[in-house]
C-alpha cells in the first residue's frame, strides 16, 4: 500500500543529516555538558555550537537562547516565568483565542491563581487585529503572547505590528513560533519580540527538544530549578544529542528555506485549487495570502473531518483534522469556532500539511481519492441532500 505523509505540522521525520550529526553524542561524546573534564567539554562544545547556529538563524545572541524539552515547555516556561517575575508589576496577560493549548492552558491556570487574561478575537481569516491589542492593554498588562502562525489554519499573525504596540506600552511580547521556525524566514529583531518559542521536531529535528529565545534583560523567573544549566534559566542535565540535532536541523533549514518556501507554496496552491475545483461545497479555512507555505485546511459540509481522516488512513494517507494533540477529541477545534465556523462545518475540517519530502505525486494520490471519499461520506450523511 502507498504511504503518504501529509501531516508535517504534527511532526516531521528527522532529516538523515540531522541523525548523523546526533549519533556520536549518544555514544562517543556522551559527557555531561556541565562536567569540567574533557568528556564534558566535548559535549559542551557541540551544544554551544548548536546554540550559536540557532541564535544566528534567529538574529539573536547565543546567550539569549535557552534550550528546553520542546514547544510546550517553552511556552509554559515563558508564560509562567514572566507572570511570576512581574507579579508585583501587574497581573494582566493578553493572548489570542486561537493559540495552541500549550499557551491557552497556562493562561487559564494563571486565571485560577488570580491573573486576568484577555483572549483576543480573530477575524474570519484567523488574524488578530493589532488595534484590539492596543485597546486591551491596561496598566496591569505584563505580557502579550500571540502565535506567529496558527497550527491549524496556517494564518500568519501581524507580529511586527503587535510588538510595536507592546513596546510602546512597555509590555513584554512573546510569540509561539513552533509552526514557523524552519518554515518561513524569522528574525527576532524584525519581529520586535522579547521571547519566542520553538520546537525541533517541527523542522526535521528530533522530538523532545526545543528552545526559547529571551531577549537580554527580560525579567524571567525559571520554571525548572536545581541546576545552573542554561545560565540558571532551565535546570536539568542538557539533552546534548537533541540539542545538536536541533542545531543541525536549523542549519539545514537555513540553507533550504528559500527554496522550500517556493516549492511548498506551489504545491499548497495546487492542492487548494484542485480541491476547490473537484469537491463541491467546501471552503478554505485561514487566510489566502498570509498563510504558511505548507498549510492546507478545508471544511467540507455535511460530513465529519474525522471520517475523512480515517478513510484516508485506510488508503495510507496521513492527514489531520486539527492539531495532533486534540485530534482524539470530537469537540470541534477552538480555532475553527473562533474564525466563526458553525459546529457542523468545524467538524468537517481536514488539514493537510506539506514538508521536505512531499512530492507532487503525493498530491496526485490524495486528489485521486479525496473527492471519492467526500462523496461517499456525503451520501451516507443524514444532513446531505444531493443537488
Amino acid at each position, binding site marked *: 500500500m502507498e504511504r503518504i505523509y501529509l501531516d508535517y505540522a504534527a511532526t516531521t521525520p528527522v532529516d538523515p543529516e540531522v541523525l548523523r550529526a546526533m549519533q556520536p553524542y549518544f555514544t562517543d561524546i556522551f559527557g555531561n555538558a556541565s562536567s569540567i573534564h574533557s568528556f564534558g567539554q566535548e559535549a559542551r562544545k557541540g551544544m554551544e555550537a548548536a546554540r550559536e547556529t540557532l541564535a544566528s538563524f534567529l538574529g539573536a545572541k547565543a546567550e539569549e537562547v535557552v534550550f528546553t524539552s520542546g514547544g510546550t515547555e517553552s511556552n509554559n516556561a515563558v508564560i509562567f516565568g514572566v507572570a511570576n517575575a512581574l507579579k508585583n508589576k501587574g497581573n494582566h496577560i493578553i493572548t489570542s483565542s486561537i493559540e495552541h493549548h500549550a499557551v491557552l492552558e497556562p493562561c*487559564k491556570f494563571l486565571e485560577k491563581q488570580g491573573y486576568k487574561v484577555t483572549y483576543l478575537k480573530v477575524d474570519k481569516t484567523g488574524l488578530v487585529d493589532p488595534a484590539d491589542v492596543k485597546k486591551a492593554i491596561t496598566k496591569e498588562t505584563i505580557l502579550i503572547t500571540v502565535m506567529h502562525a496558527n497550527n491549524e489554519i496556517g494564518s500568519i499573525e501581524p507580529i511586527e505590528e503587535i510588538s510595536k504596540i507592546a513596546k510602546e506600552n512597555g509590555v513584554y511580547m512573546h510569540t509561539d513560533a513552533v509552526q514557523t521556525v524552519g518554515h518561513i524566514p524569522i528574525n527576532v529583531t524584525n519581529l520586535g519580540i522579547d521571547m519566542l518559542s520553538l520546537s525541533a521536531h517541527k523542522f526535521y529535528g528530533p522530538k523532545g527538544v526545543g528552545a526559547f529565545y529571551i531577549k537580554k534583560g527580560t525579567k524571567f523567573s525559571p520554571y525548572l530549578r536545581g541546576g545552573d544549566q542554561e545560565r540558571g534559566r532551565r535546570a536539568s542535565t542538557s539533552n546534548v544529542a537533541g540539542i545538536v540535532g536541533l542545531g543541525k536541523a536549523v542549519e539545514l533549514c537555513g540553507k533550504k528555506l528559500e527554496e522550500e518556501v517556493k516549492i511548498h507554496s506551489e504545491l499548497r496552491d495546487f492542492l487548494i485549487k484542485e480541491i476547490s475545483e473537484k469537491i463541491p461545497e467546501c471552503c478554505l479555512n485561514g487566510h489566502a495570502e498570509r498563510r504558511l507555505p505548507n498549510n492546507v485546511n478545508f471544511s467540507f459540509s455535511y460530513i465529519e473531518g474525522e471520517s475523512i481522516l*480515517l*478513510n484516508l488512513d485506510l488508503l495510507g494517507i496521513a492527514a489531520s483534522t486539527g492539531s495532533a494533540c*486534540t485530534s482524539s*477529541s470530537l*469537540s470541534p477545534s477552538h480555532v475553527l469556532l473562533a474564525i466563526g465556523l458553525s459546529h457542523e462545518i468545524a467538524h468537517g475540517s481536514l488539514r493537510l500539511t506539506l514538508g521536505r519530502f512531499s512530492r507532487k505525486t503525493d498530491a496526485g494520490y490524495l486528489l485521486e481519492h479525496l473527492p471519492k471519499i467526500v462523496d461517499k*461520506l456525503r451520501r*451516507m450523511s443524514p444532513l446531505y441532500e444531493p443537488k
Partner: protein
Amino acid sequence: MTNNKKRVMVAMSGGVDSAVAAALLQKDGYEVIGGTMCFSTAGGSASGGSLFDEEAADNRKRPSCCGISGIEDARKTANTLGIKHYVFSFGTVLEDKVIKNFCSEYLAGRTPNPCVKCNQFLKFNLLLRKARELSCDYLATGHYVKLCYNRLKHKYLLKKAKDSQKDQSYFLYAIKKEVLPYLIFPLGKYTKEEVRRLARNFNLPVSDKPGSQEICFIPNDDYRSFISGRIGKEIVPGALIHIDGRVIGKHQGIPFYTIGQRRALGGGYAAPLYVVKIDAKKNVIVLGGQKDTCAQGLIADNLNFLMGLPLKKIIAIGAKIRYNHREVKSRLIPINKDSVRIEFSLPQRAVTPGQSVVFYQKDTVLGGGIIRESIN
C-alpha cells in the same frame, strides 16, 4: 482496494471478549479494524479537547471496559494482531442518550438498563455508522449471542449464546432489526472458558484480564454516589412506609432504592423487609415481606421487535425480566402498538419498572420492552 477481503470493524473495549472476537475474525480471513468507543466526558471546556483537570481527575476512575486503560488495552491487542485501531469519542452522545436517561429514570423511581440504551444508540447505531463510513461490510462485537440467517424466511434471528451463563441477548433486544445483516457475533458459539483459552492461544495481551459486569460510566461501581453527584439537589429524603400503611422510617431519596432491595433499609424489623414499591410522586418507599415482592405479570412499553411480528394475537413466550433472571413461561398479550401485558405462569419476584423485559421463543429473541408496572 487491492484485496477482496470483507472488511469488518470490531468494537474493542479492551477486554478479553472483544479481543478474541477480533482475532477469530482475522483468522477467518476478514480485514479487521478495531474501533473503541471513548466515553471520556471530562474536558469539554471552551477550548475544546479532553484536557487534564486536577479536580476532576480523581473522580474519573473507570472500570476496565472503558476509560483510558480500556483504550490502551484495546490498542495493545490491535498492535498484537497487527490491525488498525481507531478511537471514537462518544462522550457527548453517551451523555445525551444514556446518562441523562439513567438519572431521570432513577429519579422517577425506576431502575434503568443503561447497557440496553448504549447498544441501541451507540454501539449498534453510531459505531455501526462509523464502520459503514469506513467501508466496513460488518460490525462485530464480543457479545455472547448468536446471529443466524434463516434462508427460507430470509430473516436474521438473534439467538441466545451457547454459554447460557454468559448469554447477553438480553441487552440486545432494543437494536433495530434492520441492522442485523451488518452484524457479526463471533463468540456466540463459545463458552467463556473457551474464549479465555482462545485468548491465550492467540497470545492476546489481555487474556488474564478480569471481566467486568459494571456499568462503564459509573466509577467504582457506585451508582448512588454517581447520581448524587449529578442530580443531588433533586433528591429529597422521604418516608419508608410498611405495606400495611404504617410509617416505619425515613428513606434517603427515591433514586437510592430498587425493587426487591433488602439492604440499607434500617434494621430492627420483626421479619425481613424488602422494597416492594417506589412511589416517586408521593416520595415514599413501600416495604413489605418477601411474598409482597411477587407479581403475576407486568405491563411493558417502548417495545422493539427483532422479528417483524404482527402484534395482534396472544402468544406464548419466555420472559426475562432482568439480566440474571431465569426466564419464565408467559403469555404476551398485545394492548396497543407500543405496549403489551405479560402474564407469568408463576409469580415472579421483584418485577422492576425501568428494567427491560425480553421476549424469547426457545432460543430466539423476539423483542422486548421496558417494564412500566407490575401486575398483581
